[in-house]
């Protein structure tokens, strides 16, 4: 959200429609989010459901959509206010391709969230539309948001012509949506939906790595063709890293288990978890870290942080990224063993017995997680490191 507030006014070359609204929504969102977490921690989930009126409209207790009803409604209100603010900003200023793609992404996000209010008694229908929120977010509209932020930072840091970058952006988001929308089918293999989804889902989601690969090529290509040396090297590193890790995590690790005959054995195992970890970090954590890295120094009145601070930030980049690679590898190893012991071998073992046998990999994953945390602390610390700074351009 912060990234969008930064980017849309800059792209539109005008002030945000209403900074006051943005500020108010920030606090509402923060307080509501904090209260929800307090609710999760303070009382048992069933009590929380009762207190927050789940019986009025039953929406809770589904993966990722666990939020109590008031929180879900709050998300809608805040999202609409946020979108109103950004859309009005764009309407009164310049309408660039980058802000168009971002706004389409954000509007899509809001529209598909509405499916979280639909929870029929029929569990197959419930799951079918649950994915309209979950899949069409992460493998649809969020990728538009990702692509547009990436394009924005690349324009700013490389000085490559806007026409070229925006053309790439359109090509990438086209590839994303033509593969990703039907790619929803890879969730419709084993939940009671017709078997033809095994074909549609396998074929289209096998193509889903292509937009991610294009994104990586795009980022490297633009940086190689740069017309200026931007002093914020850390932000450029995040942009390149984001492309690579999104391709590996979402593209490669996604492809590993997306074909229906493979997925028959890997569905709902630690393989899925491995893919989820790297894809989320690569695509969505890194793009945020990139935006913060780019915008924060400028907001504090300088083009880039001092060399000392950037070196620390790059350490943070490598620690977090390498740790995430190991987390993914350990979970993949755990997943392969789990699939073998529980599903493929001649004498399949019970879930809990298998979990016990693969616990070594969980411990190794835990240690990789500690390294990741150290990286994250360094990232935050890097903003407080002084030294000689580049003057604002």
């Amino acid at each position, binding site marked *: 959200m912060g990234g969008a507030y930064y980017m849309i006014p800059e792209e539109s070359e005008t002030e945000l429609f209403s900074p006051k609204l943005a500020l108010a929504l920030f606090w509402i969102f923060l307080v509501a989010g904090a209260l929800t977490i307090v609710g999760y921690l303070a009382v048992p989930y069933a009590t929380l459901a009762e207190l927050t009126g789940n019986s009025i409209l039953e929406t*809770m207790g589904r993966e990722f959509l666990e939020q109590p009803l008031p929180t879900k409604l709050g998300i809608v209100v805040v999202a609409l206010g946020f979108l109103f603010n950004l859309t009005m900003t764009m309407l009164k200023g310049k309408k660039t391709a980058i802000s168009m793609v971002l706004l389409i992404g954000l509007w899509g996000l809001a529209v598909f969230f509405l499916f979280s209010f639909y*929870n029929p*008694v029929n569990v197959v229908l419930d799951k079918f539309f649950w994915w309209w929120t979950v899949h069409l977010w992460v493998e649809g509209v969020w990728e538009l948001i990702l692509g547009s932020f990436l394009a924005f930072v690349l324009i700013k840091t490389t000085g490559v012509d806007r*026409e070229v970058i925006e053309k790439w952006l359109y090509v990438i988001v086209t590839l994303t949506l033509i593969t990703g929308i039907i790619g929803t*089918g890879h969730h419709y293999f*084993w939940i009671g939906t017709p078997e033809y989804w095994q074909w549609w889902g396998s074929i289209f989601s096998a193509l889903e790595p292509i937009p991610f690969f294009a994104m990586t090529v795009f980022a490297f290509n633009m940086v190689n063709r740069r017309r200026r040396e931007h002093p914020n090297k850390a932000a450029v590193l995040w942009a390149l890293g984001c492309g690579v890790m999104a391709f590996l995590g979402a593209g490669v690790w996604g492809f590993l288990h997306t074909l229906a005959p493979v997925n*028959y054995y890997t569905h*709902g195992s630690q393989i899925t978890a491995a893919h989820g970890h790297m894809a989320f970090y690569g695509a969505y954590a890194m793009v945020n870290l990139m935006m913060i890295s780019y915008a924060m120094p400028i907001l504090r009145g300088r083009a880039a942080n001092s060399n000392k601070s950037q070196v620390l930030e790059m350490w943070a980049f490598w620690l977090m990224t390498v740790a995430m690679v190991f987390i993914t590898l350990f979970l993949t190893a755990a997943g392969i063993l789990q699939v073998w012991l529980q599903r493929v071998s001649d004498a399949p073992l019970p879930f809990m017995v298998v*979990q*016990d046998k693969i616990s070594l990999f969980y411990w190794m994953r835990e240690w990789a997680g500690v390294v990741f945390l150290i990286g994250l602390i360094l990232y935050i610390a890097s903003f407080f490191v002084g030294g000689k700074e580049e003057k604002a351009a």
Partner: protein
Amino acid sequence: MSGAFTKSMARNIFYGGTVFFFLLFLALSFDTHSQLPKRDMRQNITPQIAEGKKLWEVNNCIGCHTLMGEGAYFAPELGNVIVRYGDEGVKAFIQSRPKEGIPGRRSMPQFNFTDEQLNAIVAFLKHVNSINDANWPPNDQG
């Protein structure tokens, strides 16, 4: 990527392609809906099963378990748990969870369900087990 291929062509392909594939997705979804009644056993859904689904949700079972492979991968798959333990086995298992957990390993909490609630949960899990989900999972271990 240069010369004849312009930004406005890329933009038109983006809008056209998106609309086309979204419509295709809608068409497939529509067809799925016409086929689902034969697969999802909706004619068997009773108020008891609906109550079981509600209990499944408000106790956040999906926060650990998976159902037809979806959920958190921390506890066993329950889409076919009835096959593994049978009705009475499932009830006995849920009732016998120690309050304090089991030292040294993960263990399910004690939810203190009434008999009526346990019956509803079992009815729901039996219903899920009856859904035609293309023979998933591969074996009874889930």
